[in-house]
């Protein structure tokens, strides 16, 4: 079982969490171009290595938080 470090509850089982995709996406202003909106909605990084991610401890404290995960080893990077 994979353990995910929640900043409040500590290490808990993966099935208690919801994945939120790539972290740090900034919503463009309403006046932004179609290309900017397209990039915001559909373009995601797909690195071989460290990826900053959004997680939510949905079956726990409910808190949203960010984590860095290595997509090669599937381990979290402190």
């Amino acid at each position: 079982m994979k353990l995910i470090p929640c900043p409040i509850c500590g290490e808990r089982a993966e099935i208690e969490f919801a994945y939120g995709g790539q972290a740090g996406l900034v919503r463009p202003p309403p006046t932004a171009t179609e290309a900017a909106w397209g990039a915001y909605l559909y373009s995601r990084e797909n690195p071989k290595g460290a990826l900053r991610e959004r997680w939510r401890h949905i079956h726990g404290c409910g808190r949203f938080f960010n984590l860095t995960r290595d997509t090669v080893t599937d381990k979290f990077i402190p």
Partner: protein
Amino acid sequence: MPDALPPLAALARRGPLDRASPVPGVTLAPPMRRVALHGDMSFYAGIPLPRTPLRAALSDETAILWLGPEEWLVLAPACDNVVPGNGSVVDVSHRQVGLHIEGYRAETLLNAACPLDLDLDAFPVGACTRTVFGKAQITLWRRDAALFHLEVARSFAGYVHALLREAALEFGAG
């Protein structure tokens, strides 16, 4: 007239598991007042809200369970009224069903479908948290070393009880 509360009625018909050692017993908790608290609150009915994550506060017969930042669940006697507070205070008495899992190896029975570390060092008496049991979300509170209080949405109560019974077969429950 259709059965208004099928999961509860089913639980009552099935009754408790065999309480004789070494099989952990599962019983339906008595009716109680449940209050969901949200917001930047400090007290409920004069009782200080627990600020330490994953810990419950017990005052007389009223327990206040920390569920998340600025989120608590109050378990009080059924005769208690809901007290207004400095945040969102919602009576959820009928939303959930309480189950008591009690006895030797109660934590082993729970671990059949719950991924939490229930060792006394990791989850001591007074600890509480939301977690999962099989496919159902539950709130688990350790009232004593060998007594767990499990809160589950009433629509999942039959499922959780059935899964507990099935897990108890391993301990020789009939």
